[in-house]
C-alpha cells in the first residue's frame, strides 16, 4: 500500500501518506494506539473504505479494490473485530453464504458440510459443521471467521485485534493456528497494540501514530522501550500548579467489581480500589482495557455483575442515575456530543438540564423562572469563560472546548463530592485544556474527589495524586506517588509488558 491518505467527509484525517508493506509468508504486526488509523488502513485494503489518494500493489501489480468482493477475488480476507456472523445459522451456512453450491433447486448441504469439516481438519481448526453459531464460544467464532475467508481462497489474512475478546488459553490456540497457517505459506496481518503478543507471534511490525507510519521494524532488533516510545510518543512535561494533596475520607470504593463480556473473558475482572476526598486518582490504559465499563458501572449507566461499588455509603445500581447524581456525583463523559450535551438545545438549557426540578432556582408556582435561569447562565458563562454570544445560542455552534466548558459548568455547579472525568480534554483546544485541568485541580483542593480517566499520559502524570494502570480488565499497576514515574514506565504496563505484584497493587489502590 503506497502513500495512502484517507480523509473522512467530516475532515478527520485517518491516514496521512501511509506506506505499508507486507512480505509473503510472514506474520506482520500493525500496531499503534486506538484511533491511530490501523483499522481504517486495513478497511481500505479490504475494499470497505475508499482511499482519498494512494495506490495498492499486490505482487508488484497495481490493483483497484472497490469492494470486499474485489478484495476476496485478489485473495485478501479480513476478520473484523466485531464478528460478521449470523448467530441463528449453522457453521456451514455461515461459511457458504454467498458461494452456495446448488443441487437441483436447493443448496447442496451435504457436500458443503463435508467441505467445511475437511477444511477445518486441514488447518487444524475443526468445528462441527451443524452447530448453530450462537452456541459457539468466542474462540470458536474466530476460527469460523478464519475458515470463512480461507474457503474463499484468501492468501492474505487481516486480523483486527483478534485477541481482544479471547481468554489466554484461546489466545494460545489462535497463535498456534496462525503460525501453522504461516508455515503453509499464508500471509497474515495482525492488528494489535499488545506488545507481548506481537513479540510472541509476529516477524515484523509497522507502527502507526496519528495516522502516520512511525517505521517498520524486525522484532529481533528492537527493544520494547523503543517500540512503546514510538507507539505512545515522547512525554512533554506539563506544568499545572498543584498544592500538596490533602487526602480525606473514602468517597468511592469498588470491591471485586466484575463486568462480564460476550465470551468467557470478563471485561472487568475483580477490580478493587478506593477514592478519597481531596485527591485525583488517574486511570491510564490503552483504550478498550475496561476503562469505559468501569466508568459506566460507577455512574450507573452500565451494569456490573459481581462485587460492589459504594458511593457515599450506598450501593450503586444500574439505572439509578438520578439518585446517584443527587447524592453528589458529577460526570464529564467521554462522548461529549451524545452523553455530555443535547446538541439541539441552547447553551443555557444544557447548563440547567440537571437542575430544572430544583425548586429553589427554577420553579415559581410550577412555571419556569426565566429570569433566574438567565442570571445563573450569565454567571456560569462568566465564571467558566465560555465563548458565546449569549446563553440562547445553540450549543452546537460552539467549539469543542467551549462545549466541554458548558459540561464542566453544569457538573461543577452542583457541588459534587466526586467528579468522574473521562477524557476531559480530548479534542479540546490548548487554552480550554489548561482551563479544564486547573478547574479539576481546584475542585480537588476544595475537597472533591476526582477520578480521571485519560489516554493523555502527560495529563495523567501532571494531575494525578495516585495512578492506576489498566490492562485486560485488571489493574496492572498502581502508583501511590508519581515521583519518578514517566511515560516510558507507564507504557510498559499499558502494553502488558510489565505487571506489578497483585498484593502491592491492592494495597496501594485502597
Amino acid at each position: 500500500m503506497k502513500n495512502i491518505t484517507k480523509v473522512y467527509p467530516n475532515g478527520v484525517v485517518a491516514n496521512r501518506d501511509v506506506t505499508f508493506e507486507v512480505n509473503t509468508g510472514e506474520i506482520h504486526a500493525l500496531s499503534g494506539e486506538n484511533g491511530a488509523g490501523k483499522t481504517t488502513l486495513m478497511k481500505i485494503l479490504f475494499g470497505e473504505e475508499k482511499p482519498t489518494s494512494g495506490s495498492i500493489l499486490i505482487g508488484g501489480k497495481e490493483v483497484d479494490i472497490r469492494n470486499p468482493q474485489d478484495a476476496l477475488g485478489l485473495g485478501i480476507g479480513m476478520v473484523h473485530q466485531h464478528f460478521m456472523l449470523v448467530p441463528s445459522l449453522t457453521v456451514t451456512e455461515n461459511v457458504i453464504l454467498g458461494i452456495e453450491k446448488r443441487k437441483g433447486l436447493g443448496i447442496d448441504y451435504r457436500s458443503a458440510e463435508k467441505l467445511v469439516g475437511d477444511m477445518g481438519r486441514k488447518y487444524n481448526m475443526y468445528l462441527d459443521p451443524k452447530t448453530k453459531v450462537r452456541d459457539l464460544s468466542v474462540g470458536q467464532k474466530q476460527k469460523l471467521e478464519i475458515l470463512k475467508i480461507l474457503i474463499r481462497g484468501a492468501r492474505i489474512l487481516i486480523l483486527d485485534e483478534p485477541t481482544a475478546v479471547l481468554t489466554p488459553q484461546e489466545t494460545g490456540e489462535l497463535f498456534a493456528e496462525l503460525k501453522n497457517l504461516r508455515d503453509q505459506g499464508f500471509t497474515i496481518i495482525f492488528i494489535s497494540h499488545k506488545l507481548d503478543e506481537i513479540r510472541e507471534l509476529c516477524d515484523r511490525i509497522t507502527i502507526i501514530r496519528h495516522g502516520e507510519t512511525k517505521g517498520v521494524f524486525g522484532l529481533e532488533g528492537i527493544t520494547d522501550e523503543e517500540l512503546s516510545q514510538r507507539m505512545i510518543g515522547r512525554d512533554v512535561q506539563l506544568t499545572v500548579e498543584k498544592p500538596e494533596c490533602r487526602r480525606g475520607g473514602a468517597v468511592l470504593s469498588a470491591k471485586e467489581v466484575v463486568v462480564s463480556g460476550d465470551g468467557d473473558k470478563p471485561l472487568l475482572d475483580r477490580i478493587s480500589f478506593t477514592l478519597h476526598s481531596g485527591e485525583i486518582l488517574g486511570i491510564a490504559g490503552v483504550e478498550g482495557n475496561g476503562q469505559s465499563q468501569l466508568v459506566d458501572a460507577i455512574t450507573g449507566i452500565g451494569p456490573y455483575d459481581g462485587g460492589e461499588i459504594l458511593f457515599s455509603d450506598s450501593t450503586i445500581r444500574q439505572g439509578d442515575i438520578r439518585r446517584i447524581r443527587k447524592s453528589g456525583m458529577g460526570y464529564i463523559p467521554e462522548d461529549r456530543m451524545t452523553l455530555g450535551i443535547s446538541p439541539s438545545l441552547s447553551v443555557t438549557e444544557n447548563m440547567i438540564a440537571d437542575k430544572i426540578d430544583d425548586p429553589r432556582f427554577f420553579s415559581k408556582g410550577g412555571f419556569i423562572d426565566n429570569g433566574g435561569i438567565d442570571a445563573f447562565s450569565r454567571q456560569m458563562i462568566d465564571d467558566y469563560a465560555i465563548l458565546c454570544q449569549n446563553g440562547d445560542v445553540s450549543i452546537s455552534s460552539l467549539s469543542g472546548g467551549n462545549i466541554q466548558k458548558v459540561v464542566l459548568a453544569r457538573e461543577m455547579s452542583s457541588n459534587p463530592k466526586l467528579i468522574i472525568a473521562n477524557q476531559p480534554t480530548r479534542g479540546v483546544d490548548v487554552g480550554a485544556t489548561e482551563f479544564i485541568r486547573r478547574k479539576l485541580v481546584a475542585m480537588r483542593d476544595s475537597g472533591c474527589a476526582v477520578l480521571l480517566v485519560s489516554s493523555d499520559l502527560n495529563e495523567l502524570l501532571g494531575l494525578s495524586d495516585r495512578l492506576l494502570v489498566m490492562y485486560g480488565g485488571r489493574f496492572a499497576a498502581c502508583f501511590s506517588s508519581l515521583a519518578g514515574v514517566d511515560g516510558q514506565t507507564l507504557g510498559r504496563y499499558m502494553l502488558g509488558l510489565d505487571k506489578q505484584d497483585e498484593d502491592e497493587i491492592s494495597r496501594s489502590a485502597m
Partner: protein
Amino acid sequence: MSVFQQIFSAEFVAMWLRVATPLLFASLGAVICEKSGVVNLGLEGIMLCSALAGVIGSAYTNSLFGGFACGIAMGLILSAVFAYFHLVMKANSVLCGTAINTFASGFTVFVLEICTGEKGNSSSLKSFSFGTVDIPLIKDIPVIGEILSGHNVLTYAAFIMVGVIWYMLYRTPLGLRIRADGENENAINSVGISVNRTRFIAILLCGVMTSIGGMYLSMGYLNMFVRDMVAGRGFISLAANAMGQCSPVGTMCSALIFAFFDGLSNILQLLRIPSEFVQMVPYAATIAGLVIYAIQKTESEKRKRRQMGRKVLENA
C-alpha cells in the same frame, strides 16, 4: 342451534379456511420481507390495489389470467416503489408503507370511478373469479369432504405456499441470504453480497404473495371489488407474522388463530356479545404474550450475566 353446535360444524371450519386464505398469503409475504430485515407496512395498500387491478384486468382482457397478471403486476410495481424509496433513497420503511396505504385507498376509488362511474363497488363490471376445486374421492366423505373439498383454488394454493416458502427460505441460496441479511447485514456485506439487492428481491416476492391475497378478496371471496374491502387484513397479516416469530409454519398457525376469531365473531353475535369484543381477543392475547416473552428474555439475560460474574469471583 347452540353456539357450540355452530362452531363444531363443518360449515364453520370451511368458513374458517376461507377467511384465513388472504391472511395466509399476505402474512407469508410479510415473513419473507421481515426475514430480510424490512418491515413492510404497505401490505394493506398492495392488497387493495391488486384486488382492484385483478378485477379490472380480468374485465378488460376478458380472461381470468389477464386479471391475475394485472394484479401481480400491480403488486410488483407498488413493491418496487416501496423498495426504491426505502432502500435506495433511505426513507423510513414505516413512512413508505403508510404512504402506499394512503395512496391505495384514494387511488382505488379514483380508478373505480373512472372505470365504472361508481365509487362503491365494481358490480357493473363483468369480472372473472377463481374457481373452486372439488377433490375427487375426498369430497364424498361426510364431514371431511365438506371441510376439505370445494374450496377456492387459491385457498389450496395458500396452504401449499407455506411449504414452498419454507423450502425457499431454509433450503435455497436465496433463502439463506435473506435470512442472513435480516440478522446481520454486515455478515452479508463482508462476503461481498449486496444487502440491498437481496432485500429488493425479498420485497418483490412479498409483493407477489400479498397481491394474490388481495385478488382472492375480489375474485374469490367476493366476485367484485368493494371500496376499502381489505379492511385491515394487511395489518392483521403483519401481526400474524410477528406472533408466528417470522417462521412460515408459526405464521400460518397465527393467521389461522386470527381467522378463527374473525369467524367466531360472526357466530357470537347471536349471544349478544359484540363482534368487536371477540375480534379484540386475539390482539389482546398477542400483546400479553409478547410482554411476557420480552420480560422473560430480559430476565434470563440478566441472570446469565450475574452467573458469569459469580463464576469469575469463584474462580479467583
